[in-house]
């Protein structure tokens, strides 16, 4: 029992985000004509996955106690690269995907090297590298265009059932065991794979834990013999990898490339909001990517809810397209403030400044 209590108290933020998401999503599904169907769920998860992957990318530098203002730009860069190389024969596609992920890794590495070797603050470094990645993206993709393999796009944005159908795995009907999981949206599958194959092993490795240690108390970590620089570099590289995934999925989902810096900026800011709502502390040392995933879910669910409100109902004014951005903004402000405000629990005012 004590173990459970400790587990809950360590992850309060993430659990609250999950609860909030479930409440919002149930509300949304109840009002939606196609609520609680696989189709709708697939569509919803499509809209969320890119930001979830980007949110995971943002989580890592925040765990260190810093921030990354270049995640959106790096994603845009990978998106542009993808629009050029993820097409053609299966081998070319595979190579293209590898190239995209490599780009993400490289971007993360550059961020990490400048922060660690230059001993500069992450916020200003990533401000600058973000501009560089945006520039490179514009270089590759001056105007929206390019093309990503259509089959890949189809499979990635639908339920799992489409995968064998599109690639012709089983001539005829699929085996029984497959039908059980055929309804799961592909984005969810991708998310689970990324979390299980990349996030969880990192989180439970010594280097991953070292990132938490550095974020919690960097000088203490150093004194304890933790390899601080290595932990930081690894965190930034992992962050770059997740940005790479985000950019790749975005390209696959939209079918083309777009290097718009403003869109990059919007995604970056949303990733920060998601991290905060998901319970990761801006001071570093606590939280995690799973909480951020719930944070994104909350953000998306809020948007969805606004869509389904009946204009003729008492809550109709919420659906007014003119008022919608304002309401979304107010809710976002409240959500991030609650997520970050620590004031209400403090009996000793001095604790505010620690």
């Amino acid at each position, binding site marked *: 029992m004590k173990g459970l209590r400790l587990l809950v108290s360590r992850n309060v933020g993430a659990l609250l985000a999950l609860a909030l998401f479930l409440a919002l999503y149930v509300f949304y599904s109840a009002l939606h004509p196609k609520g609680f169907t696989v189709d709708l769920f697939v569509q919803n998860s499509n809209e969320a996955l890119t930001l979830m992957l980007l949110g995971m990318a943002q989580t890592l530098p925040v765990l260190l106690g810093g921030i990354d203002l270049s995640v959106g730009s790096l994603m845009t860069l990978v998106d542009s690269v993808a629009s050029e190389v993820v097409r053609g024969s299966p081998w070319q596609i595979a190579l293209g995907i590898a190239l995209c992920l490599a780009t993400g890794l490289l971007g993360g590495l550059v961020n990490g090297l400048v922060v660690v070797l230059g001993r500069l603050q992450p916020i200003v470094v990533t401000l600058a590298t973000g501009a560089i990645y945006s520039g490179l993206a514009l270089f590759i993709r001056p105007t929206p265009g390019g093309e990503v393999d259509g089959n890949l796009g189809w499979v990635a944005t639908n339920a799992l059932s489409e995968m064998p159908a599109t690639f012709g795995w089983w001539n005829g009907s699929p085996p029984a065991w497959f039908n059980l999981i055929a309804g799961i949206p592909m984005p969810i599958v991708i998310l689970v794979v990324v979390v299980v194959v990349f996030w969880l092993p990192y989180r439970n490795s010594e280097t991953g834990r070292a990132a938490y240690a550095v974020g919690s108390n960097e000088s203490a970590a150093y004194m304890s013999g933790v390899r601080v620089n290595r932990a930081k570099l690894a965190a930034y590289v992992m962050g770059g990898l997740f940005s790479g995934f985000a950019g790749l999925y975005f390209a696959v989902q939209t079918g083309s490339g777009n290097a718009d810096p403003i869109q990059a900026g919007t995604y970056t800011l949303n990733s920060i909001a998601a991290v905060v709502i998901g319970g990761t502390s801006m001071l570093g040392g606590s939280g995690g990517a799973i909480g951020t995933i719930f944070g994104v879910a909350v953000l998306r669910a809020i948007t969805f809810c606004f869509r389904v409100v009946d204009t003729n109902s008492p809550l109709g004014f919420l659906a007014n397209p003119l008022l919608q951005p304002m309401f979304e*903004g107010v809710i976002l402000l409240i959500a991030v403030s609650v997520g970050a405000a620590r004031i209400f629990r403090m009996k000793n005012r001095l604790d505010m400044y620690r």
Partner: protein
Amino acid sequence: MPGRFRVLLETVDRPLLFAGGFIVCILAVGTIYTETTQGNALLLSPTYLLLQLKVASFLGIVAAAMMMVVLLGHIDLSVPWTIAASAMLATAWGGATAMPVGLAFGLAVGIFNGLGVAYLRVPSMIFTLGVNVVLRGFMVMLTGGFSPSSEPTPIMLYLAKGDLFGVPIPVFIWAAVGVVVTFLLRRTPMGRYVYAIGNRQAAVFLSGVNDRLVLVASFAFCSMLAALAGLLIAGYSSKAFQAMGDSYLLPSIAAVVIGGANILGGSGRFSGTVAGTILIVLLQSVLSVMQMPEAGRQIIYGVVIIAMLLAYGRSAR
């Protein structure tokens, strides 16, 4: 001679020296380009330089605003929509009271930011981010519903486009802002408290200073300056429009940092911010004269920031 040169190097603020040197480099490279391609030294002409100074004053005022909160160790991400919303409100309001209304709105936004950061203790990056989104929504709501005028008032047009003794008025306004900011920071208790809070807020709290009030006042001042910039930009562009503030956020932060201020707070000077502003404006302008495509401009912009920081921005770890 070398000895005196070294003494000069030590007494002048290092970032100022680097920024100044880089500005000279930019002008040099640009002039070489114009000489070889057009056969003139456009970049060294008074007309061009004054124009750059005028453009720089808009960014300069925003950078001064940002510096006020960066000195505290905070940041204001609501600047883009404070600029736009103040301008749009002022143009919609019209008449003689348009400018005071715009400035008052900026003041109100700043106080709100300050209250959230100082009293609710929400990290400034998060809170001002949220406020920015709310302001955008607020403006969408107002403009969508009422289609108000976006035309600047005559006084706004005059202040933004007029000249005094051959020098553009915005430059005078920027200089006036500089005098006020410098005076505030160096000669008043509030200025001392700002630096102290940026260094160690707990110690300021325990010294009997009303640190939260100082925070609110600084954010209020920052947003009010942002509003002022918005009014001038609207005058200069002859209208207020939605995305008018977006392109000022990152450059203003860059200007403050290139000017030598510590992003974590506690140190920085207005003269540095001026140098940073001029550097960025010149860089953007020269690159456009050299007809560098947007892609290349972004890359150079990023590389320059990192280079300047590496030259003098090391944090002591």
